[in-house]
């Protein structure tokens, strides 16, 4: 094993007092401070949402954080790995059952990033939503929801606003890369809407930034 690799592994996961989880370089333009610990985050449910969710997990996962996907039986582990998620630190709870709020609450105790797909059997009352958000805040974990809107409104919400695959013709070629536009809006410091264009994924399967021009749209 290379010394550099050992050094990488021996480095502390988070320094004392560090309140944010890192994100991959492609997302730093829209999330400059990383993912704020203790917050809630919504990922839209349109095309590209799953890839965006995995890309959000990748930065922290590569730095040693644990992540859990709840109620997402169909997410492809191979795609998660190519996005940069460490599969050794990714727990999947495909079917959390009727008592799923208790399961999510338990996961928030020791896992930094917990992503839940709402909808179907996973419905939520506002009181439970408040309790889960408070749990995430107390345990300094990040709660991510997708599939349906969070009843209470989230600290941050990310969405894929436009996207298209490249590399596929009519009867030739194969899917190679996808250019997407991701928009983020939220409360407090993040109330200004930001937008970025990135490859999700690029030719090598990883999410990469396309350019660094940050487009700030004024409402």
């Amino acid at each position, binding site marked *: 094993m290379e010394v550099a690799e*050992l050094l990488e*592994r*021996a480095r502390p*996961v988070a320094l004392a007092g560090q309140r944010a989880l890192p994100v991959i370089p492609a997302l730093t333009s829209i999330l400059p401070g990383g993912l704020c610990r203790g917050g809630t985050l919504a990922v839209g449910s349109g*095309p*590209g949402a*799953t*890839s965006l969710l*995995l890309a959000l997990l990748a930065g922290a996962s590569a730095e*040693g*954080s*644990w992540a859990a996907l709840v109620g997402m*039986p*169909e*997410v*492809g*582990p*191979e*795609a*998660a*790995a*190519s996005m940069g998620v460490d*599969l*050794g*630190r*990714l*727990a*999947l*709870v*495909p*079917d*959390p*059952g009727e*008592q799923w709020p*208790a*399961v999510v609450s*338990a*996961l928030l*105790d*020791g*896992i*930094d990033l917990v992503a839940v797909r709402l909808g179907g059997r996973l419905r939520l009352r506002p009181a439970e939503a408040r309790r889960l958000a408070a749990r995430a805040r107390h345990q300094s974990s990040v709660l991510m929801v997708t599939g349906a809107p969070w009843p209470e409104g989230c600290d941050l919400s990310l969405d*894929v606003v*436009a996207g*298209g*695959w490249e590399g*596929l*013709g*009519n*009867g*030739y*070629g*194969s*899917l*190679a*890369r*996808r250019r*997407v536009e991701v928009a983020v809006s939220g409360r407090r410091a993040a109330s200004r809407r930001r937008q970025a264009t990135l490859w999700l*994924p690029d030719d090598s*399967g990883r999410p990469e930034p396309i350019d660094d021009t940050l487009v700030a749209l004024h409402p």
Partner: protein
Amino acid sequence: MVWYPDWPVVASGVVGPVAVIQANQVVVASAEARSEGVRVGQRRRQAEAVCPGLAIVGRDEDRDARAFEPLVAAVARFCPTVEVMRPGLCAFSARGPARYFGGEESLARQVAEAVDAATAVVSGTMGEGCRVGVADGPFAGTLAARRGRIVPPGATAEFLAPLSVRELGRPEFADLLGRLGVRTLGQLAALPAPQVLSRFGWEGAAVHRLARGLDERPLDARRPPEDLSVEAELDPPVDRVDTAAFVAKALADRLYAGLVKGGWRCTLVRIEAESEHGESLCRTWRHDGTFSAATLAERVRWQLDGWLTGPSRPTAGLTKLRLVPEEMVADHGTQLGFWGGMAEADRQAARVLARVQSMIGPDGVVTAVLDGGRSPTERATLIPWGDQRAPRRRPELPWPGRIPPPAPALTSAPAGSVALEDSGGRPVVVNGRAEPSGAPARFRPDRGPELTVSGWSAPWPCQERWWDPDGHRRRAWMQVAVEDGRAFLLAAEGSRWSVEAIYD
């Protein structure tokens, strides 16, 4: 010392040649299986090859511990202070009972008969394998029990002298001693103690004491300064094993935290329980080394399991549980690994995931490992959390015909047939050479609106396992992009199209 050979085999209750398997390797084999050539450490396939009638059972320490409880109860009729070392091995002080039951030989015979009778009830087989040995100290006692010997007091060093250093149960250390020409315990005991300590450190000093027929550690005359026992009132009373296990874990953690605070480690713990009807149960467990929080919790769970499911179960639920550390040694500390190892975050995540497993079942929490295969669902295998993360097929092989990267983000999409039509509304089919009958223009999933195709790849054929009549599959794959920005992976089998994955 009472020893039951191959206890996991007996506890499984299977007769004939049996092998107990863990992680595809034989860990224990019955005498019949050994005579056929089955060896510990063999792979399952090798074992089955040398002994075709071999019955395979999985390793289950809970089962072993549960089945052992009636035997301990049988021994406890001779002497109430029985110390369980592990399922299959327990010890008691012979000095008092030997006098009462007419000498050590007589005591050993009576204990063996009682244990064999209890085994016959437990496993339904003829119990005749129990061996009892008497010697000074638990280490020599175990060796004496293996040989069914009764060593007179003070003669333990002579008994140990001709035995091999491999009997110490420390293979690496025994290997080193062997290379230095020290092959028997007698030769090791003859070395001067200070030199052994300076050459081999604390481990060598402990082993040297064992070889001389003494206890591993010198007697620690200091008494623990405080009462470190922990206790839990159970309200409502507990009569189910899973609930009891939860309490056991919490209580063991508390005891361990108390020990750590005082700088102690525990080698012998007494587990006491009281039932609603006032019955009191008590059992002592000894550890070869020192208990960690996890091993402590495990022993408590085994014991509760044994009590609550055994033949002499209490008539009502348990109301009180108490753990008393009986024998403690000073904690000299452990040096944690400098590079890597398990970080605190990993330990915390492991605890949380185990807790979620206790809520929704062990298969409810899985981790994924990349695997070999062609279709997107084959490219990863889901493994229950806690099991060994090993791929089933060989991921490093090229797997010709597999789906080209990038990997689709949604794999096991809801299976269902889809309609694929060309611009004239005719269904698109592929022929035997994977050529489409027309250019796909519209795409209608099982549910949802019709989508307009914006791009499609040439279908490529994939024939899998042509030699296998059951596993044989012949498919044509095609990637289709639609106007809203999504892309699908479709497979044609026969004349039906289905969505295999979504590039979400």
